[in-house]
């Protein structure tokens, strides 16, 4: 009698396991820039789909892609395109990575609110971060040494800024590497001689931080990514490329996303997911922009 009920229990146990495998647990890992966004997407999606269970963690774009290639995450969020070296590792491991563009992000260059400098050319930003300019005096500010804040090298923001602003030059060795954009915002807010960079979303709400206007060339107009009201973003200058430091945000999967993962990603690029991106200070995909390549 007892052994029979035990058998039934074991059988039920197997059933339960089968059921759990069906309602798949999706793991999302990667970009610290996107962690807020991905968490909100996961929350809203789970509200709508009670059978879905999604876990979101950060760690950096490089960390996310490394996890995807090691098979420890279903979706890797990344604020930079996958690198050739990572593609090579993927091919060697027999993995076919698939890229989905999910939103855009504008990077802003920020200084302390008391700094008189309001605008910089792209080359001036490059000169500051490669160590060619070392004093605010050379930029029309006070004779103070510039304190440079950057991100850790595992961050997509670090890599994007290096490629698109520094022309792939190395950062000056005295750049302080902060563990997140929020840490950069705090550091710049506390230091009158500081300069920092990161996703605009993180700086909009910081009272002691000033978002600089950027000029593409010396004679180009100075463009700010912030809208006239000071609280939201100006999408048009990003879509048109007038504001030069903007980037695409991606989700990487192994193979074309299908099943639960596929449903989640198509919801993200759909109107509901994009509205959330807008709400959080990211830039939704432009209308008519091919979302899935």
């Amino acid at each position: 009698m007892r052994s029979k009920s035990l058998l039934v229990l074991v059988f039920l146990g197997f059933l339960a396991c089968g059921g759990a495998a069906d309602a798949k647990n999706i793991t999302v890992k990667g970009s610290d820039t996107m962690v807020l966004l991905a968490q909100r997407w996961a929350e809203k999606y789970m509200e709508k789909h009670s059978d879905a269970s999604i876990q979101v963690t950060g760690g950096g774009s490089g960390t996310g892609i490394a996890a995807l290639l090691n098979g420890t995450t279903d979706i890797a969020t990344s604020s930079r395109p996958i690198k050739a070296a990572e593609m090579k590792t993927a091919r060697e491991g027999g993995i076919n990575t698939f890229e989905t563009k999910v939103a855009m992000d504008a990077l802003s260059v920020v200084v302390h609110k008391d700094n008189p400098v309001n605008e910089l050319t792209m080359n001036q930003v490059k000169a500051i971060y490669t160590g060619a300019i070392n004093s605010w005096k050379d930029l029309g500010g006070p004779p103070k040494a510039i304190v440079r804040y950057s991100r850790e090298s595992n961050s997509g923001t670090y890599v994007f800024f290096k490629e698109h602003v520094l022309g792939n030059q190395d950062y000056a060795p005295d750049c302080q590497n902060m563990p997140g954009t929020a840490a950069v915002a705090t550091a710049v807010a506390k230091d009158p001689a500081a300069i920092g960079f990161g996703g605009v979303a993180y700086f909009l709400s910081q009272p002691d931080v000033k978002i600089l206007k950027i000029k593409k060339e010396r004679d180009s107009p100075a463009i700010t990514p912030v809208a006239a009201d000071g609280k939201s973003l100006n999408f048009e200058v990003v879509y048109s490329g007038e504001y030069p430091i903007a980037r695409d945000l991606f989700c990487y999967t192994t193979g074309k996303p299908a099943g639960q993962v596929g449903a989640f990603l198509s919801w993200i690029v759909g109107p509901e997911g994009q509205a959330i991106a807008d709400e959080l200070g990211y830039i939704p995909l432009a209308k008519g922009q091919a979302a899935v390549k």
Partner: protein
Amino acid sequence: MKIDVPGKVEGARIGVVAPLGMAAPRASARPAPAASGADLRLRGGRRLRERAIELFLLANGSAAVLIIGLIFVFLFKEGLAAFRDIQPIQFIGGQENTPTYDPELDTFTETRQFALVWQPVSDSPKYSLLPLLNGSLLVALPATLISTVIGLLVGIYLAELARARVRELAKPAIELLAGIPTVIIGFIMLTVVASLVQSITHSHFRLNAFVGALGVSLVIIPVVASLTEDALRAVPEPLRLASYGLGATRWQTVSRVVVPAAVSGITAAGILGFGRALGETMIVLMATGNAALITGNILSSVRTMTATIAAELGAVARGSEQYHALFFVGATLFTITFMFNLTAEVIVARMRRRLRM
């Protein structure tokens, strides 16, 4: 309570240096002959059980040694693999393009020069260990200095001056300090202490080696204080009594008799503290700004070996060039701390021999 038989004192002393590793086997070997004498009177079953327990303990002890051995092998296997892709000279320095900006024309010119930089994410990655070594030392040395001075004073107070009631309260309180999660200490350093230090020193870097050293010394003060106290208590009571008998005051006795007699234990405490300071990760990751600079300025931002491994290893692909380079950093760190512990062991052994004469 304070008068010890000489044998007991010897035991306590070995206890002080036991964490260094080499003294422990000697201590455990000693009671063996006494136990074998008692064996004869034991019944067979009991003897078997004792043997079983002995074997079990031996297995545990050897497991620890085996694990250390395996860590050693793994670390060096992964670390030395770095030499497949990286020239040995690259761990010292490499060629770097240094740009110069012309503000009139808004253009750049580049010069190439030999530079000692750690810049692993680059078109031509640079893996100089010197800035990291510089960073680790610039945090660990001041931290050891601060905590040895404070730890010594606390240890003297606890061992020689404090009344029993005070000691019973103070000792656990100090040890509690060692139990604070390092991430909490790092957070306090990052938010509060860094601003305080900058407002006093007007330093260029808000987060710097000194702020890191302050945080790290908080963690090692309890270690140094507790080991110093043990070392002072191990000094035989007759030495103190003889000093008082010659008319010395309490302070003279402590400063000229007891502390010099315990100097081997105090040195061991300092060196252990230094090893711990070199290995500390979370506090330095949060409080030093992590800029890989070569500098002697304690108010400069630095990047330690531990912070580099912690910040970068999570993001590198397994088996890549940078992965092996980071393991090489780890192997270097391990070798350094190992050498220091070994040196400490030799110094302590030599001093103990001299004291005994």
